[in-house]
């Protein structure tokens, strides 16, 4: 297939542009996404092509415009909203959880709710405690939502396209530290990526490492280090948090007999617990040792560089975790 090497940011823009060309019922709303193309430039050029009618700068009112997306969706449109920093999902939590995620069910299934919520989260850029969350677990226990977390330009492109085409609400958690990362993307194609299921990125026989978002490249780097020591870690990108189909992880652990999860948030209440619990029930007899979870400490992401660096799991720390199981 035809691919181009572009950045994660460009992949997001391409997916938005292509899907907005494909379906006139789509439109996007968010703060400073119009003529300015978005604070993270993830909407570059959309306003020029589609105009204000379909690319809307909103007031600073996440509750208002995210809730508006619900009204648009049940009356025939396919709205996309951009949440500038995933931290701000807290401001519109009610609209997402009590509104968007439940409205179809409460009505007895009278309509579809094709809303795509994009939120750019994550640490590593020195944005401090209120601008660095991935918000991966905030909505983990909310039935009705689909949650995906692309770690590469190709996933960002393919999963965003799928999310926009999907008839149900999808929360797409992007990561600001990945925006400039490059990768091969089938731009201009119809090649979408599934909204569920993890992906094995690197095969290995000794241990299974499941990671998300910016922890994926770190896990891959850890695998490199381990390989140098003759340890083969299988690296799996979890990709989707809700619903969570872990079949490939079960298969992997049945082979490697060891599991390590790596997430960019506190472990307590994180998705790593869910993966560990499910793997334990599905591959109980294959586990040589209990699953090991790697995550952030029990405090917010600090601003100071050495402190922020210290809370983010390093390739070394991930490698050490893997070795501690063997």
């Amino acid at each position: 297939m035809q691919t181009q090497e572009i950045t994660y940011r460009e992949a997001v823009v391409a997916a938005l542009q292509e899907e907005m060309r494909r379906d006139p019922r789509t439109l996007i709303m968010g703060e400073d996404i119009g003529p300015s193309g978005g604070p993270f430039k993830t909407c570059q050029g959309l306003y020029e092509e589609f105009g204000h009618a379909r690319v809307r700068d909103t007031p600073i009112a996440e509750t208002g415009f995210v809730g508006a997306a619900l009204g648009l969706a049940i009356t025939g449109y396919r709205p996309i909203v951009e949440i500038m920093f995933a931290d701000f999902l807290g401001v519109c939590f009610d609209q997402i959880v009590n509104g968007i995620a439940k409205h179809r069910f409460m009505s007895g299934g009278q309509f579809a709710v094709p809303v795509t919520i994009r939120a750019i989260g994550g640490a590593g850029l020195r944005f401090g405690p209120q601008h660095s969350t991935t918000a991966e677990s905030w909505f983990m226990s909310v039935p009705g939502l689909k949650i995906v977390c692309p770690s590469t330009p190709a996933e960002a492109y393919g999963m965003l396209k799928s999310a926009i085409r999907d008839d149900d609400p999808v929360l797409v958690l992007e990561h600001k530290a990945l925006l400039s990362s490059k990768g091969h993307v089938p731009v201009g194609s119809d090649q979408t990526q599934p909204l569920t299921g993890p992906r094995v990125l690197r095969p290995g026989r000794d241990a299974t490492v499941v990671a998300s978002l910016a922890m994926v490249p770190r896990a891959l780097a850890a695998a490199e280090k381990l390989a140098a020591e003759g340890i083969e870690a299988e690296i799996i990108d979890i990709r989707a948090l809700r619903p969570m189909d872990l079949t490939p992880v079960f298969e992997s652990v049945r082979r490697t007999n060891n599991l390590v999860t790596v997430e960019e948030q506190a472990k307590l209440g994180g998705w790593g617990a869910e993966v560990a619990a499910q793997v334990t029930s599905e591959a109980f007899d294959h586990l040589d040792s209990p699953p090991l979870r790697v995550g952030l400490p029990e405090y917010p992401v600090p601003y100071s560089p050495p402190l922020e660096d210290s809370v983010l799991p390093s390739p070394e720390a991930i490698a050490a975790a893997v070795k501690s199981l063997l």
Partner: protein
Amino acid sequence: MKASRRSKAAAKKAPREQAAKAQAPAGSLVGKGHNRAVPPLDKAKRLALFEMMVKIREFEEQVQRSYLEGLVHGTTHLCQGQEGVAAGANLALADGDYVSYTYRGHGHCLARGMEMETAYAELFGRATGLCNGLGGSMHFTDIAKGLIGAAGIVGGGLPAAVGAGLSAQLNGRGQVSAVFFGDGSVNIGAFHESMNIAQVWRLPVIFICENNLYGEFTRINFTTPFEDLTERAKGYAMTAVQVDGNDVEAVYCTTAEAAERARAGDGPTFIECKTYRHRGHSRTDPAKYRDPAEVEAWLARDPIPAYRAKLVKEGLLTQKEAERMVEEAKAEVKAAADRAAAAPWPDPQQNFTAKMFA
């Protein structure tokens, strides 16, 4: 830089600029009563208004009875006393318009044509209910009739109503989005963000606030700096009109006028309907917190007898006909409730995934 934007977006004659216009708000209509410009109602329509109020009243009374019979579960929020708003406003709306409301929305749905039997079936939690028994009293939704949904979260439905308004504006078919909510809802963030967005984008949204003076057990003066909520609309430079919510024709005319403006692209309107709920906030509330004198004064302003007297006085209705309408309504709600009570319970083994995902 605005200039450069204009050129850039010229092709789309950027409605963004229209938003900018919002700076100079349409001459505010803040004031009492309604605009005589709206053509007078013919006899049929006026009788229909009366009949609708009676139906809503009887529907709610039956809910109360069914509740005591153990057929209705959890809680219910009835609207006796506020029928004038639901009946009057809905008459001014057209097919294709969008209507949303709150947990106190039985009246709005009935006025919009919701079938009584499916409504009772929903209240009774039956499979044949409007929402298959999944939502209950607080979540009546009938998308086919433009009844896009009820908010159980105070203010929670306003943003969606604004979204429906944007939908209407984009469709360009002259639809409007009307949303009903209470006085207590004007103090929460969702209301604020919705009002501002609707005004800045000049959306065809009609904000209909039913000011019944209480949010649950607390009187408006303890939660809001004034009792006239048109005052709040000033903070958005939104056209605001105050009307006697117990005068069904006044509500109709005011809403019709707002709808005209909205369909003409002149943006949203905030309508404050002064009214009162005869019962407590919800079924468990004896409403002891209200001044008996206040209750008495408002019961004396019951919208139904008032309109009945007016129609009789004008010779459009005889007491006998009025009685018959009431009797028919009583019979209709009874029959609908009885049929609903005979409906089957939903099957816990059904495929709920289909209810969750399209």
